[in-house]
């Protein structure tokens, strides 16, 4: 026994993070919810039992505006587990189809915002001086910018002119453009911290190129922060998108959870289910990303020792 070598590699950063993450209840719950919601969102449009095309929101042949076109909304009928709306929409199908769209817009906007944030944060933190001053002034402007007001204005002016795919891209871009600023500032701070560490100094003394220092050393070290921020940014992007649609600033050609809630908001005294179920779906989706962010933040935070 004495001759047996103890093979024990020093744990990699990733292994440590993974071990910590496995012990984070919040993180695991979030991950589980996210996996479930991703599957539902991916399959949603295929498994939706009824057609939900915007044109079919009103049942066929009933185009007059008088209240007679209203279908009696249903609940307690297993053919429609989440009930139906006065407009004749099966809420369950609506939620399944919407989740698909909401997930794409939320994740897309967050990835776009994070790409901008990493770019601005890295450049600003690494180059400093005038570049830093200019970029940080722009960042500050975007931080104090009343983003929601501007998003409403843009949606009102442009959304109606777009096709379905264009609409999704449009919301990804406008939400992304107004979500990067705070993250850029945090990433810049992290870059400044890493940049002042001794190993960067020695790397410079050894004659490493700028791109090697940035991509080989600084980026991997700020990556932990980026991963955590991405998770939280997806959560806020989804909330923003749902709020825009809820206020009636969807384009009318794509169905979102917010759109369902907007269309049925006036009737919520007679059909609470058309607000409750889409809302709960949003909560689960957003909660998944927030909990995942909490778990990742604990797992990747080097200050918390085990």
């Amino acid at each position, binding site marked *: 026994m004495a001759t047996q070598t103890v093979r024990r590699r020093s744990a990699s950063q990733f292994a440590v993070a993974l071990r910590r993450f496995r012990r984070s209840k919040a993180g695991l719950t979030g991950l589980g919810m996210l996996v479930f919601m991703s599957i539902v969102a991916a399959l949603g449009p295929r498994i939706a039992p009824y057609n939900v095309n915007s044109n079919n929101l009103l049942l066929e042949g009933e185009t007059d505006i008088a209240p007679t076109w209203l279908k009696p909304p249903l609940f307690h009928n297993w053919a429609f587990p989440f009930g139906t709306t006065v407009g004749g929409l099966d809420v369950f199908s609506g939620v399944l189809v919407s989740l698909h769209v909401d997930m794409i817009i939320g994740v897309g906007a967050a990835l776009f915002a994070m790409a901008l944030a990493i770019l601005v944060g890295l450049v600003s933190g690494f180059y400093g001086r005038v570049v830093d001053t200019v970029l940080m002034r722009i960042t500050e402007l975007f931080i104090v910018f009343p983003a*929601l007001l501007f998003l409403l204005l843009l949606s*009102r*002016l442009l959304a109606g002119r777009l096709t379905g795919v264009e609409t999704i891209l449009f919301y990804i871009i406008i939400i992304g453009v107004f979500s990067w600023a705070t993250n850029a500032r945090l990433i810049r701070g992290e870059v400044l911290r890493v940049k002042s560490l001794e190993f960067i100094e020695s790397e410079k003394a050894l004659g490493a190129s700028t791109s090697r220092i940035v991509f080989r050393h600084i980026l991997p070290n700020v990556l932990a922060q980026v991963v955590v921020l991405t998770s939280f940014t997806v959560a806020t992007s989804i909330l923003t998108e749902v709020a825009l649609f809820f206020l009636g*600033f969807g384009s009318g050609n794509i169905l979102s959870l917010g759109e369902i*809630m907007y269309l049925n908001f006036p009737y919520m005294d007679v059909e609470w289910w058309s607000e409750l179920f889409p809302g709960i779906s949003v909560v689960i989706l957003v909660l998944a990303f927030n909990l995942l962010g*909490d778990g990742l933040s604990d797992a990747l935070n080097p200050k918390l020792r085990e």
Partner: protein
Amino acid sequence: MPMNIWGYVVRRLLYIIPMVIGITAITFFTVFAAAGGNPVAIVEANDPELPQATVNALIAYLQLDKPVPIQYLNWLWNVVHLNFGVSIQSGRPVSDIIWSWAWTTVYLQLFALVVSVALAIPISVYAARRRNSAGDFVITGISVFGISAPVFWVGEMLIILFAYDLGVLPAGGAHSLNAVWPWSIGDYLAHLALPAAVIAYFNLGLYVRLLRSRLVEIFQSDYVMALRAMGTPERITVYKHALRNAITPVVTFVGLALGTSIAGAPVTETTFSWPGLGYEFVRAITNLDFPVILAIVFLISVMTMVSNIVVDILYVYIDPRVRVS
């Protein structure tokens, strides 16, 4: 109190000016770009039965015969004189109606702020002291739910429950039609209850998460251990010593959250038909009432930034280590 605080305040206030100019300029040029350089065409397309007099008034107001940058500067010049032009929707001067909207927004936000801060402190202390207990678990759960649920949806659920099912609170509006301030104070408070609760709940989630994690760290620190070893009463340890160190980052955060909350007013106010800046903004956007849109963007930007400054000043009062520079 540092002597140079006033210099600092003035500098911060002056800093608002370029920011507001940037924000309103971007909004102004966006409106023009999206409208193909002619916002009146959009307004007319939106409402073909618009009286010619209104269209002419709008053209005169926007000075559409001049280049766009000149038009913007002209708008800015009028704003300096608190002249926001005439609302297309109602035909009244915007400066006549906007202040009552602003006040309605401000008192809702401030009320919600006070409630959420007052509740956040005892709740966070409770959770942090009984870390990982059932109570802590419930509190952190409710907090993360609060920041994950859309505020309008929480509002809808409360309306369905309290207004439609129980019928104890009004579903919307700031007061009843025949209510007279201050005699109908009960009526005003009843209308305030639900929207304030929704905003306070969202803020509470943010504050409790931050304050709790700060307090957990502080309760493990050496100085708290020393205080406990000396036999200092727990109440004094917690509220006099630990809380003081935990509260400072929360104060900054309150400023940011207040700004976010005011900027998010369109959502909360629309849910409750609360006649403030946010609700009127949504209406103005729907009707493309440009003077009102620009005026509200301007006011909300200023309010957001001023609330941040107020909080920064408070910060200096609370934490004597902070020096203004």
